[in-house]
């Protein structure tokens, strides 16, 4: 089974691209399943179910979604293997731009859209910088210049990645994307695998439910801006 981690800022088009990609893979006789990681709400399951694609949803609720992802991924892989899937896609929204969902020796995709502003490629951390494939969506409604500058800045942030423009609505570009994910390595387990980069750290009083503000309530892993 080829495991592929799909990540990207909220509403960048991950689900649309994934749905089109799975259709394209199905055309060539490949089966695929999806695990959707989100925080509070995810209605994508219905879309994939309508397509006949096995799907599971995990909601992180009050936990850091990244940490939630990594503590569930092995069970997810076992689920996919049990269904004898050709491909298993995990879809997770990067919510703080410092997310780091990519795993070594597992194909890593980042989806970002061309409407996010020209500085966005510089603002996204490991999710973009450590990806093997970067997909730019919504490129068809901006000017050629904005398209070129944005792509150039993505290439600066991750010169190694394959850069692909994909239209999540028309499906333009998914044929090429299917070729690329076809090169993804096989995954039998992620037990003992390593993340490509450490996840955002959080271990302080507020992680444990503290709601009061003030110096004496701040305990643990803290960081100060240093205004003086």
């Amino acid at each position: 089974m080829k495991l592929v981690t799909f990540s990207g800022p909220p509403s960048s088009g991950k689900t649309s691209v994934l749905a089109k990609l799975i259709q394209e893979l199905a055309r060539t006789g490949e089966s695929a399943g999806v695990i959707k990681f989100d925080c509070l709400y995810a209605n994508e399951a219905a879309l994939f179910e309508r397509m006949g694609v096995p799907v599971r949803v995990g909601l992180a609720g009050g936990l850091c979604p990244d940490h939630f992802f990594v503590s569930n991924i092995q069970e997810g892989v076992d689920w996919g293997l049990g269904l004898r899937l050709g491909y298993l896609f995990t879809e997770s929204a990067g919510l703080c731009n410092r997310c780091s969902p990519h795993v070594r020796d597992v194909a890593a995709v980042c989806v970002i859209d061309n409407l996010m502003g020209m500085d966005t490629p510089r603002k996204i951390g490991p999710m973009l910088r450590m990806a093997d494939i970067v997909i730019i969506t919504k490129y068809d409604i901006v000017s050629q210049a904005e398209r070129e500058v944005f792509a150039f800045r993505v290439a600066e942030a991750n010169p190694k990645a394959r850069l692909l423009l994909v239209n999540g609505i028309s499906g333009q570009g998914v044929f090429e994307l299917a070729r690329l994910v076809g090169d993804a390595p096989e995954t039998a387990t992620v037990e003992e695998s390593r993340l490509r980069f450490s996840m955002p750290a959080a271990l302080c009083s507020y992680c444990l439910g503290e709601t009061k503000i003030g110096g004496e309530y701040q305990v643990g892993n803290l960081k100060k801006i240093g205004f003086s």
Partner: protein
Amino acid sequence: MNEPLREASAADAPPDAILDADVQALAGSRPEVLRFLEDYGIRLGPQAGVSLRRRLAELPEELFEDIGIDRRRLEANLGFFLAARVSDARGAADGARAQVRSITVVGGRDKSGNAEDVRLELPVGSVTGIVGPTGSGKSRLLADIEWMAQGDTPTGRVVLVNGEPPDLRSRFSPGRKLVAQLSQNMNFVMDASAGEFVRMHAESRRSAATSRDTAGGASERLVADVIAKANLLAGEAFAADAPLTSLSGGQSRALMIADTAFLSASPIVLIDEIENAGIDRKQALDLLVRREKIVLMATHDPILALMADQRLVICGGGIQAVLRTSEAEKKALVELERIDRQLQSLRERLRRGESIGDAPSQASRA
């Protein structure tokens, strides 16, 4: 056909000449190295006599934790970035534009599997219309060209550059995309003035090429040129400091065309349905042709279709015919343009609040 996906390794690190140079020297000779690091949030003050390698090694581990990349990967990314610049610059030095002299599309098969008996050569400076109903396969043709298909797409088409199979490594290089696009649906999403917009594009092109080939002054001249050309196409003038959001539909389209003509590295320009854009279509095509672009135009407008040297008839996923614009059609075009001018003058007069009588010259406000 594609190289296997793999993570960066020490072998991807930048050349020793860069790592062993001190930051002060790099600021003068290779400013792009420091700019690259700044984009990652790493600002290295000048400090003579200490190598970049050491400066990076001295950065605290927490900094790398915060910016979300480790030292090895950062160095590898810098290496990749510089190597990609070299290969892009080499392309530019051979004259990226002059380098592509023609694109050839060798037919594959249509949606029903019938052979597509076409070998279509598109030289620079040519204008080709694409006609056919929605869903006939226009987008797939463009996608085949963009992907530099080598029989590996659903159509089985093969795309040649200068008559030869292209270097497929540039499929994913943003600086070496073959097709630039202009369509009715495109908008500016930046909050900037027209001049800032063009400057930003020029600067990204400049930093994609070698560091010293375009002086700052040249780029300012380029900005002025692009704005002037856009004004010529738009009819209604706008200044370089006009906010993009204040431009009319026609002005926006004109700016996009002038910008693409001067600043896009892509040799092919695809124009999609710009018939109602409110710009001088003939001048727009002339500009692109003079800038040695290969122009492809998907259109339902008879004037645009006949302005092309030839047009492709697309049907059922295949190129069904390639029609050269005949002498009779060129004559018809003259007549069509006359009718078009008449329509435009009527539109203009109604807009000014005039009435339309039998004799246009006597029309006046009561």
